[in-house]
């Protein structure tokens, strides 16, 4: 077990290095010059040259990368050219918003997956309808789904807010949902959930349906297996057979699918945040790319990379929790 964790950590560092190097090379080969954008059209050549020297942009590529890595080890990702604040403090402001959104989406997605799988496997009436509707909606691109939801639930019914994380524009950062739960404020919690509802569902639909379809198929396979027949012959109720005996055996393929969907969820979150003006890493990244704010772009990519690597490791761990036969193997 410890060996597996150590291997994982080593891999995580390798992945992050490769990731940082790739993003770094892309930005250095792009034609856009952040310093020119930063000072505007009318800046003097001397001023630009001075700033470029200050930021190290006049040095060789590898020397710049070395500088970048050296600062990275000291927890310094540089200063955002756009917000003129340290990138690290920007990330600290926006990461919680993204984690709350992605976390809620993962929760909603798993719930959806379970509904699809269980109604299918227990052959409940209406299961097929739920499946068809879910598949139709999950086939639409996320941004279209988001826009449609805004038109319907905000513009037409006035049920849900169109965007943002709270009513006030200033309180957009940090752990909005978790803080209001911790404070025990039902009105603020409800407000946070109302804001989360549309973006989380839009983000959750595609992964939820993908996992649900896999889980349903695997559950139907497991229900044909001999040990399930043994349980039926033992007089167990169908409910406890499905929930206690079949489900855990059916989880493995669904967990693998979940691991694949994680990457899609993290790229989807960028799109959804833009559509719903959600102050998170995605929105921050979107604005940074437009202004060629390279330090900010690298910061977001690295943070999302860490989130992805950690959550994939958790997914792998879940496999061995679900199936005891996988334990004790390398």
């Amino acid at each position, binding site marked *: 077990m410890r060996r597996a964790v150590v291997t994982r950590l080593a891999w995580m560092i390798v992945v992050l290095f490769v990731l940082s190097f790739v993003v770094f090379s892309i930005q250095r080969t792009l034609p856009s010059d952040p310093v020119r954008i930063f000072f505007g059209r009318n800046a003097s050549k001397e001023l630009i040259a001075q700033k470029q020297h200050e930021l190290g942009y006049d040095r060789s590529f590898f020397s710049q990368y070395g500088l970048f890595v050296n600062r990275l080890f000291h927890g310094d990702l540089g200063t955002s050219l756009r917000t003129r604040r340290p990138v690290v403090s920007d990330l600290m402001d926006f990461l919680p918003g993204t984690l709350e959104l992605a976390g809620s989406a993962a929760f909603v997605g798993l719930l959806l997956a379970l509904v699809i799988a269980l109604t299918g496997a227990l052959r409940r009436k209406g299961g097929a309808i739920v499946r068809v509707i879910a598949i139709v909606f999950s086939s639409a691109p996320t941004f279209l789904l988001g826009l449609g939801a805004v038109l319907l639930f905000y513009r037409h019914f006035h049920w849900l807010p169109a965007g943002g994380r709270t009513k006030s524009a200033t309180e957009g950062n940090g752990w909005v949902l978790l803080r209001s739960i911790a404070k025990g404020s039902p009105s603020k919690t409800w407000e946070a959930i109302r804001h989360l509802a549309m973006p989380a569902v839009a983000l959750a639909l595609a992964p939820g349906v993908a996992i649900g379809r896999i889980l349903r198929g695997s559950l139907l396979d497991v229900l044909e297996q001999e040990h399930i027949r043994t349980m039926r012959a*033992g*007089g167990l109720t169908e409910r406890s057979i499905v929930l206690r005996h079949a489900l855990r055996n059916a989880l493995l393929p669904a967990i693998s699918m979940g691991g694949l969907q994680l990457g899609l969820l993290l790229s989807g979150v960028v799109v959804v945040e833009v559509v719903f003006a959600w102050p998170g890493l995605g929105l921050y990244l979107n604005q940074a790319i437009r202004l060629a704010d390279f330090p900010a772009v690298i910061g977001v990519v690295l943070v999302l990379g860490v989130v992805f690597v950690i959550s994939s490791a958790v997914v792998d761990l879940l496999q061995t929790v679900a199936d005891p036969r996988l334990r004790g*193997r390398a």
Partner: protein
Amino acid sequence: MTDGPIASIRNLSVEFAAKRGTIQALRGVDLEIARGEIVALVGESGSGKSVLSSCLLGMAGPRAAVKGEVVVGGVDMLNGTAAQRRSVRKHLLGAVFQDPLGALNPTMRVGRLLSERGLYRERAEQVLRDVAVPDVAQRLRQWPHQLSGGLRQRVAIAFALGADGRLPTNNSARTPTDHLDEAVSAGNTPLLLIADEPTTALDVSVQAQVLSLFDRLRREHSCALLLVTHDLAAAASVADRVVVMYAGRVCETGPIAEVMARPAHPYTASLLAARLPLTPASPAPVPMRGSPPNPAALPSGCAFAPRCDLATDACRQTLPSPVPVSIGGDSSSGRQVACLHSATLLVAPSTVTHLTSPTPSRATATDETVLSLVSVSKSFVAPGNRKLRLHAVTDVSVSLQAGQSLAVVGESGCGKTTLLRLASGLAQPDDGTVNWGTSGRPQLVFQDAGASLTPWFSIGRQVTERLRARGLGSNVSNQRTRELFDLVGLDSHVAQALPRQLSGGQRQRAAIARALASEPRLLICDEPISALDASLSVRILDLLHEVRRELGVALLFVTHDLAAARYIADDVAVMYLGRVVERAPSIKLFANPQHPYTVGLLAASPAAHAGTLAPTLEGEPPSPIGQHLGCAFASRCPGVHDRCRTEQPMLLQRGGTELACHLIPPDGDLL
């Protein structure tokens, strides 16, 4: 409820709607099981015996159209509510299915699994001890995959024994602790166990242990048993009564000893005649003609008529029902036979030919060596601990001449499959050499021909392709394909069929034809008949004999079926924990086994004991992981002495037998 039968089935018919018409699984079956009675339900696959046990459990399924009456413990198992039927399953019945590896939920520890059936701590330990599971407390914490096949089957039986034997009379709320107290104090067992091929997948020694367990449950707890099986010898060792089924109908029933001694239905007689013998001077097996009828197109008359020597026009027109017969004026035995000609059969039993020599005459072996394994060893990384090695095969030497046949027998985990992989070149030995002489790579025939044939090519094409791959022209290939089909006894018109359109026997023939297309000098067979019914397996073995005689091909036959080994092989090698412990000519080995393990293995086979329980070979083989000092069989050997525990016995000649045992002195050596 104590009087009268526990379960009664009257005029039960079950149909399934299928693409090719209605499948008639059962057609008017009557059956009663009394308290403490052991009934064997015998028949080929497709005879309806598994459907019958599903109906008894009230689990016929939504796709079955069921007519008739099934009553268990006073509850209607066909029309009762789902809750009523479930309650009968929970409290009165226990069920054990064929596959011990799949019978337990792999994600649940044994203790938790048993608690699902109301067997909590003390009661669970007690039941596990009842079914002869060692180290009970430790087992409760283990996962199913950590147990051997035999142990898993015993845990499955323990689960089946969780029923308390009485239906709850009132539904007043009970706390879990009440339930616990009651279960511990009651200590009851189910009224009826339904065991569907419970020993088929098990090794001979474990099989004997499970059968004697059933016998003990009946004696100590009056637990009745419906033993669904195709193995007549296993059935005869414990059952009181036998019900023989064919094409969804009962063709004969009566006390099992009587039925086996004097079968009154031609089908029963041919089933008995098709058995592979194990004891010396037994009659040679007579393969049954034809194949079981298509359940979607059953004839209006007796379904067995097309395969029956006694059939007349009357048989083809009327469907015979079971009627009581009297034997020697005694009609009290409850024998019933559904045959118009039962009297003929009883008066003049068909004459059987006796096997003079246990193996029929063979092609003489030539000097051409087709396989030579010289002290091969193979080990793997132990599952769960990469520092240890699992020693699958250790220092085995085997050589085979063209036309010779050798059977390798042993329990699961003895290394026979690894040896097969080494001999066929599918695996490389860690030590030692594998040589096929000038003959090239051997061909393989597997247990499951359905899985070894490519599902989307016709079998004709699969054979032709092998021939074309050898550079033969298309005309020659097609001609040769027809010859091969002829040789393996397949009609040339089935060449166009896909594997799934064939019966199990036809598929195995096609697999053999495909293997022969490469003109191998050695055919390696991995349990080629264990998935087939008794009537078919003799014919496949006869085919292998013929292939040997006609083509001079050598056979290496890997099996756990001792009777099949005896029938097919000149020589038999017995493996135990990765080593050959005894190798002798087949006649000699079965008449006079030398190694204590061979002796135990033969004794444990039900076929060796007409109608009585075989003595069990206690214990299990030690783990193949890590190194062992001394003889691996020492832990189970009745005659073990000190030297066995410290010194590995060598495989030495003792009067024509190769033997690895310290107890028997080698030639010319006096102990």
